[in-house]
């Protein structure tokens, strides 16, 4: 008996509430929509635009400025001057060792070959000879192209076997007359040259970014251009891949050594 009473009571109350709502809201509703909706919509839109613009500015301008600290190289190095003087161009200072490894930035012992004494009038050279050559101390150069410890890069494979120019990855650094500001990522400690300057991720030159994707970009292009040439290469490759997926027996695309990705295996560039 008691259960049936309890069940009945909410059912009985419910219609009353609905009726009440309808009665009270009906006279207010026709007044508000014309004024209220337009006004609120405009404000919401304005706030959206303001918020959108603010977040764009924070994300694209403020955050990168906060993220990267600006450092100045210990010596203002003039590449153009050195390239003009050196007999073998880049390789005079950035040479291969006998074991195939690449020397990278030269050590002080290599610089001493020319700079045992001050040769010219340049105050930077005087500073270099006094502070480093005479003290027998290595210059703490900040290396723009420094990669993480897990990366293996073979200069020999690229420069000697593939006959690539230094410019392809390092840009026209040999023509520079002074050192750029070194922007260091405060979180990772790597140079901004690795991540790239352009916040939208668009690069105009091959040397503007040095992430793994950029290695992959170039290698993908190379893989196709070995057989095909011209602008069509990427399109024909895509078509070939699509056909090979749809009809695996009809066409075979040359695969890399990796079993997982069918590209080049990870251990080619990792260590």
């Amino acid at each position, binding site marked *: 008996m008691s259960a049936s009473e309890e069940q009945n009571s909410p059912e009985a109350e419910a219609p009353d509430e609905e009726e009440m709502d309808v009665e009270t809201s009906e006279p207010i509703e026709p007044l508000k929509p014309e004024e209220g909706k337009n006004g609120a919509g405009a404000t919401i839109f304005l706030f959206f635009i303001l918020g959108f613009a603010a977040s764009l500015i924070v994300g694209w301008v403020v955050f990168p400025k906060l993220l990267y600290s600006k450092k100045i190289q210990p010596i203002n190095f003039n590449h153009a001057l050195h390239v003009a003087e050196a007999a073998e161009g880049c390789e005079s200072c950035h040479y291969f060792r006998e074991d195939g*490894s690449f020397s990278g930035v030269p050590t002080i012992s290599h610089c001493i070959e020319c700079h045992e004494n001050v040769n010219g009038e340049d105050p930077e050279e005087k500073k270099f000879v006094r502070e480093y050559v005479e003290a027998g101390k290595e210059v703490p150069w900040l290396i723009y192209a420094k990669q993480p410890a*897990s990366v293996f890069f073979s200069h020999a494979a690229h420069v*000697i076997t593939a006959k690539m120019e230094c410019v392809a990855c390092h840009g026209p650094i040999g023509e520079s007359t002074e050192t750029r500001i070194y922007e260091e990522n405060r979180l990772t400690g790597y140079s901004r040259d690795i991540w790239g300057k352009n916040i939208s991720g668009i690069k105009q030159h091959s040397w503007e970014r040095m992430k793994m994707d950029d290695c992959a970009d170039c290698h993908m292009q190379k893989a196709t251009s070995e057989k095909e040439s011209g602008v069509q290469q990427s399109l024909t490759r895509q078509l070939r891949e699509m056909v090979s997926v749809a009809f695996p027996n009809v066409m075979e695309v040359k*695969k890399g050594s*990796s*079993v997982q990705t069918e590209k080049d295996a990870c*251990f080619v560039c990792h*260590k």
Partner: protein
Amino acid sequence: MKQTQGNNGNKKFGMVINLDLCTGCGSCMVACMAENNVPFKEDETDKLDSITWMRVYKLKNGKSWPNADICYLPRPCMHCGGHGDHGHSPCVSVCPAVATDYSMATGIVSQIYTRCFGCRYCMAACPYHVRYFNWWDPVWPEGMERFLNPDVSVRMRGVVEKCSFCFHRYQLAMNKAFLEGRRVLEEDEYQSACTQACPAGAITFGDLNNPEHAVHQLVQPDPKHAGRPRNPKAFRLLERLETNPKVYYVSSRKWVRQSGDNYLKKEKQKI
């Protein structure tokens, strides 16, 4: 490109360990840890937590004197080619992160520490227990971090690591070959650290696809049976799983060969 039995200029680096020569001295373990920056703890009493890419096991024949016999069995990563040698080794097939990969060009199972997120599926899949998990960040005794091998990246907490057949040595040897205009390595140019450290000369390393290499001559792998040794004194661990390992063991003692797998009584007679 059909990648059935390795060749097509592809290498298949493998190892042959002569258990009759192994004295169980542990030089290979020490050399491996030093070469590959393998972390260790102050207290290594809990062997389940110890990371040893190369581990020497002690086998006993279970008989009492005068028939008691002991055999030491060094165990690196087997670099399994998987059933049919298609590169689907137990660990590679389960990795959800493409952190471990099989290279058809070298036959080496790679481990990319920066890709690994530590799910440890591979550890569960590996029947040889060659994979180890970093439960802690490595802590080196003071000053030791200056003596780490710069060619091998140091692993962080939360990733899996294992023997790489000293792949960085292959990278460096290829560097030298590129500089000299070659693309092929001599047998002695790429040798693992444990091979060179073994004072008894028990370990041999080389390309199993190359009939001129010592490893090929020692075991005479049968390409029709996924590289099963034709030398009756050679065997592989857990042969019946068809993981197709690239580490072969040689022993003149029957009980040692029989302990390579959980053979039935009938099967044991043939070994």
